[in-house]
Structures are given as C-alpha cells and as structure tokens.
C-alpha cells in the first residue's frame, strides 16, 4: 500500500483519471470524489466517456512546443533525478517538458483508466507483460521509428523487452535494477560473516545472525508485492528461468510438485525472516538494515534510496545463493523501467524527440548520477560516474544469463494482484497448508487465464 501523505492523496488515488485531473489539487480532488463514487458501480461508462479521440499526431513534423509527461517517480530521489533529465532536455531548446508526478502506487493502479482517458504524451512505465498488454490493447503509441535511431545503443534483451506481440516497439528502456541480498559491509566484517554460496550456507549464516541478536533476513510485505521477489528467486533457483516464464504465462500447473518445492523451501527459510512482515513497508525493512537490526535484505537495489552518505558507501550485496546445481545462479529479477508514448499524443513530434533523448546514454548518465540504485539500460552509458552499488549491480546483471522482469510484470495484472498478493500473504501467515494454497491458486488461475 502506498503511505499517503495526506487524505487528499489517498482520496485522489481512488479517482479514475478520466474523472480527475492529474494534479492532486483540491478542486480536482472534489471533482474526483464524485467520480470515485460512480467508479465503484460504473467503471465501464467512465472508461467509455474518457476514450474520445484527441487531436491526431503530426508525424514527421519538426518537434517544438510543449510535451507533457506523466510520471510515477514520486519518491524524492528518483523524482529529482528525472527532473534533472527533463531540465537537460529543455536546455536543448527543441521542446519544453511539463511533468505531472503522481504517487507511484496510485499511478500504477490508475493506469487502465489513465491510458483510456487523456494521458500525457509520454509516460513512465514497465517493460514486460505489463507493456505488451497495453500495446496489445492499442493503448500505447508505436515508436518503432524512434528505435530506428536508438536501437544501436541497446542489446537484444532490452529490445525484446521493448517489443510488443506485433513486433513493433512501444517502450524506451531507461534503467533496471537487480533483486539481490543486500547487507552492510561494516556489520559483516565486524562479525566475520561471509556471503553464502549455497542454501545451506545461507541457513547456517542465518542461525549465526540469530544468535547475534539480529533478524537474519529483513522482510516486508504490507504492500503485497515484495514477497513476490522471494517467490521468484526461489522458483528460478529451484526450477530455472524457463519454468518461471511458462508458470507466469499460465502454462504450468501451480499444483505441480515443482511449485510445492518452492513453497516448501520458503517455509524452511521463513523463521529466518523478520517477523510481522505483513504490517511493514519495504522502506521500514530497509531502515532495519540501515540501523543494523537485520543482517541482510532481499530487494531490488532501489532500496539503496534509504541509505545516505556514509551508509550508502557501506552497502554491499550478492546474488541469491545457488539451490539446484543445474540452474546455479543463472537467473535474476532485474525489472526494466522506462517510458511509453500515449496512443494519440497531443504533440507527437516532441514526444518522439523526448523519447529519443531518453534513450540516449547522455540522459541516462544524468539520471544515474542522482539515483544511486539503478543501472543504465543503454549499453554505451558512461559508467565512470557509477558508485560502488551501481558498478556491482551492472556486474551482476551482466554475469547473469536470464533476466526476469518480476512476478507482477511477467504475468497478467489481474492474476498478480487479486490472486497472488492474497495467496502469498496467506502463505506468510500460515506456511503449513501448501497443498491447499497451491490448489487454490491453480483453481483461481484457471478462472482468469481463459
């Protein structure tokens, strides 16, 4: 869940953008509450109201004027980093940017209505199934011509992650970040801990940490999605990347012994996880690592946003240890964040000029200077400015064969949010009924994947 700063933010989060403006002002908020009430009963009508056509794009025209950007980068660090990038684009004098920033979780939840309403010209979004879904619905703009210009700067994996089911490109990758086990160097050297290479070593290390009065693995799942990272990595370590992909695509049975093994292994690790995770946000769990109350934390390296100054220098991490030798450590979750273009942008020429700029090594360098947890998607990005975290993250991603996007980006959003979130939370509450849990997931999956 988002930790809303105010009641207005919270209420505004309920409002479909077709009813509210993108700004969370009082007027829009009032306007929005009426819409929210109607949305509970009548989403279709609202969606239909919002889908009227705006002016058509001016393809091929020279870029000028203003380009609007819908951004979910509401946390302080990425928000500033993005603002720097847009300021640099403004300075080029091609077109002016206007950013509408919306709370991250709110933006995600509204995306459906937002894209069908009157979206900004360019918007922040994710690669993978989540991008292909909207591209397939005709809600994203084809930017294959932008890729003709920037394509040489990206390796194939990124191009594939930006391509829709129809073979056209709909996405400009900006950065990604690996999901790893993070720890504090000073604490580990003081206690003589070593990064574990196998599951058994991880368990031994956890036992030692418990004796030392630490919570071995920090854990938070109030928002519902962080536990997906644990499931993903265990699944890929035990069953491999290919099984992950087909399981997420709904092609495998969740009642398969392979999936049960994943939950069973997780059950063995749960006592080493920080208790009370369902009431904790990832920020709070990361803080426990900062305060040396926990030993390590499995999360995306964006958790480094919670580390400042000397603490950031002290942050180190390693890939989740091997479980099954045939898969080693050959897969990792490293979700790609980037930008999409609206289906019918008001200023298409400027939107494409901006996207081309965002795909450049220069734009990424500016961004990564401020946001310490991510690594650039562009293969020519200047890494000399990378801090230790970024260098190591790039190294780990580079050394891993299979890059997954994350459970909720690799599967249907309705399955991820209405089935997997409650299921994983149930598992954390009661890890003993694995058979009941997996058969319930499978039954629900069948009702969604039709």
């Amino acid at each position, binding site marked *: 869940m988002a930790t809303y700063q105010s009641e207005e933010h919270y209420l505004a989060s309920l409002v479909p953008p077709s009813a509210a403006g993108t700004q969370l002002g009082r007027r829009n908020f009032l306007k929005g509450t009426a819409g929210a009430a109607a949305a509970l009963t009548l989403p279709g009508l609202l969606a*239909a109201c919002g889908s009227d056509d705006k002016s058509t794009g001016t393809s091929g025209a020279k870029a000028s004027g203003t380009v609007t950007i819908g951004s979910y980068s509401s946390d302080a660090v990425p928000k500033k980093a993005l603002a720097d990038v847009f300021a640099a684009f403004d300075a080029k004098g091609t077109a002016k940017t206007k950013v509408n920033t919306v709370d991250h979780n709110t933006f995600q939840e509204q995306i459906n209505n937002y894209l*069908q309403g009157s979206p900004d010209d360019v918007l922040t979004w994710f690669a993978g199934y989540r991008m292909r879904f909207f591209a397939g619905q005709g809600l994203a703009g084809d930017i294959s011509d932008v890729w003709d210009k920037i394509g040489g700067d990206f390796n194939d994996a990124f191009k594939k992650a930006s391509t829709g089911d129809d073979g056209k490109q709909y996405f400009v990758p900006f950065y990604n970040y690996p999901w790893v086990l993070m720890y504090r160097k000073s604490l580990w050297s003081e206690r003589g801990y070593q990064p574990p290479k196998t599951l058994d070593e991880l368990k031994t290390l956890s036992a030692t940490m418990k004796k030392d009065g630490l919570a071995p693995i920090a854990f938070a799942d109030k928002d519902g999605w962080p536990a997906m990272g644990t499931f993903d990595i265990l699944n890929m370590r035990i069953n491999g990347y290919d099984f992950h992909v087909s399981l997420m695509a709904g092609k495998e049975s969740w009642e398969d012994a392979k999936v049960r093994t994943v939950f069973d292994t997780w059950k063995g690790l749960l006592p080493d996880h920080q208790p009370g995770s369902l*009431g904790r946000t990832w920020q709070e769990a990361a803080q426990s690592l900062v305060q040396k109350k926990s030993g390590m934390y499995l999360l995306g390296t964006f958790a480094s946003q919670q580390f400042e100054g000397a603490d950031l220098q002290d942050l180190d991490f390693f890939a989740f240890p091997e479980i099954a030798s045939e898969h080693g450590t050959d897969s990792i979750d490293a979700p790609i964040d980037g930008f999409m273009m609206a289906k019918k942008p008001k200023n298409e020429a400027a939107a494409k000029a901006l996207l081309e700029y965002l795909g450049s090594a220069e734009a990424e360098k500016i961004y990564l200077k401020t946001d310490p947890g991510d690594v650039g998607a562009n293969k020519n990005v200047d890494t000399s400015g990378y801090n230790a975290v970024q260098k190591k993250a790039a190294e780990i991603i580079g050394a891993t064969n299979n890059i997954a996007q994350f459970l909720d980006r690799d599967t249907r959003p309705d399955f991820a949010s*209405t089935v997997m979130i409650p299921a994983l939370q149930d598992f954390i509450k009661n890890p003993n009924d694995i058979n009941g849990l997996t058969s319930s997931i499978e039954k629900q999956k069948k*009702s969604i994947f039709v």
Partner: protein
Amino acid sequence: MATSGAPPVVPGPLGRRAKRPHRRLVRLSRGDRITLFVMAAVPTLLVLWLVWLPGIASVVLGFFRWEGVGNFDTATWVGLDNYKNILTNYPPFKPAIEHNIIWLVALFLVPTPLGMFLAVLLDKEMRLSRFYQTALFIPVVLSLALVGFMWQLIYSPEQGLLNQITGGHTDWYGDPNINLWAVLVAVCWKQTGYVMLLYLAGLKAVDPTLREAATVDGATETQTFFRIIFPVMRPINVIVLVITFIEALRAFDLVWVINKGRNGLELISALVTQNIVGEASRIGFGSALATIMLAISSVFVAVYVRYALREEDNS
C-alpha cells in the same frame, strides 16, 4: 438550464392571489408549470443517470467477463461464472463477509448503547455539557480516512503511543488476528458521537409533560426512560438502526487507507475496489461482487422504505 426564464414569472401569481383572496383554487400559470416540470425532471434524470443506470449496469456487467479496455463489445457473456467463482474460488470473499458481519455487530453493541447513554447524560444539562457535546461530536466531522491517520499515530508499532505506554511490540494494524479489532475501536470512537447526536436531538424533542406525568405516577428514572422515553423515540431508533446497517455495509475508507483491505481487513467494498479500480480490471468479477453488496443493502433499504411509508400513512 431551462429555468432561466422562470423566475420573473414567480411574482405574478402571488400578486394575483393577493388581489383575489376569495379564490381557493389557484390555476398554475404557464411559467409555474414549466418551473415545476423542470424541478421534477432534472432530479429524476439525475437519479436515473447517477443511481439507476450505474446500478443496473453493475448487475449486467456481473454476467460478463471484461478487462475494462476498449468498448463493451470486447466483453464476453459468462452467465453465473463470476458468482460461482466468488462463492467457491475466491479466498478473500469469506473473510470479507465475516468482517462485514463483525463490523455490523460491533457497531450495534458498542457505539449504539454508548451513544444513547452519553445522550441521556448530556440531556441532563449538567455543567460544561456543551463542551462535552462538541468534544464527542468532533470525530463525526472527520472523514474516516483522516481518522485512520490519527489512529495510526496511536497504533504504529515502533513510534505509536499505545506501544510506547505499554512497552509492547504489538503491530496493531499489521497482525491479521487483531487489526480488525484495532480498526473497530477507531470506527466505534467515531460512530458513538453520531449516535449520541441523533439521540440527543430525539431526547430534546420528547414532550416534557410525559416525564412530569411519569414522575407524578411515581416512576423511577430508569422506568421513565425504558418504559416511556425510549418507546416515544421510535423514529430515532429506526434511523439509528438504518445508519448502523449502512455504515457497516459501506465501511471502506479506513481499511483502504491501512492496507487496501487485505491481510485480515477484507471487506466486500474493498474487494470490489481491488478488482475494478486497480490495475487488475476484472470488471465483471468486481461488478458481481458489487451486485452481491447491492442485494444485501436492498434488504435493509426495503425494510426502511416500508417503515417510512407506514409512518407517512399514520401521520
């Protein structure tokens, strides 16, 4: 709007009526008729558009499978599948129903008697009663979302007031075994003031001669209240009954602010929102949930309407 031509006509009939006071039957002028028509038609259309149309659309959508993208022609008819799935294949549904029922029972057992009791006390016109009245009523004015934030300060596991005082480490909002009760404390705190105000208004309206008569007949204070005052306040009792049902069914804001209605705080309204408003967009499934909620509410609405109509006939 079409009413713009009407106001100048209004002084007309009044003036005429003043000249001819003997005439009982007043013919409506054309302007009056237009005004009346517009006054009846505009609200009717609004109600049709904002209440009936969405209501019926929800029921209809409940029989479809639709991802909420594009026109309605992308929806497929699935008959009762959504309902079948809700009842047999949707783990959060059962706890949601249970929590709504617990919510309802709690609202009846705690804030209703407590609010009534406080109203009786305040009705005694003791010193500072205005102050108490205001203090107890303030939570009602606050939105539930805001109430959620205020109680967060009390319940927060690390910095919260409650754990600081007791020295405990209870995660009041996070522990699925207790978070519903923690939330209900906040809800009852708010609801008490509302019930209190309703009963206070009711008590003020009770004819004082009834009390006098009871005193003359030698009734005790308790007897007077339960045998005379309480039955006289029947309309207030019905209103309190109805608002309690409504509050229990529409409960949503607080659990949504806390954790989006998951992990021990499932409510039907939250499930509807999770399925419809979020990225998930299981519009048909969510509409079926909303229809179930509508069906339950209709029972109480029907009871209330029947009562209201009977009252009208009696008067």
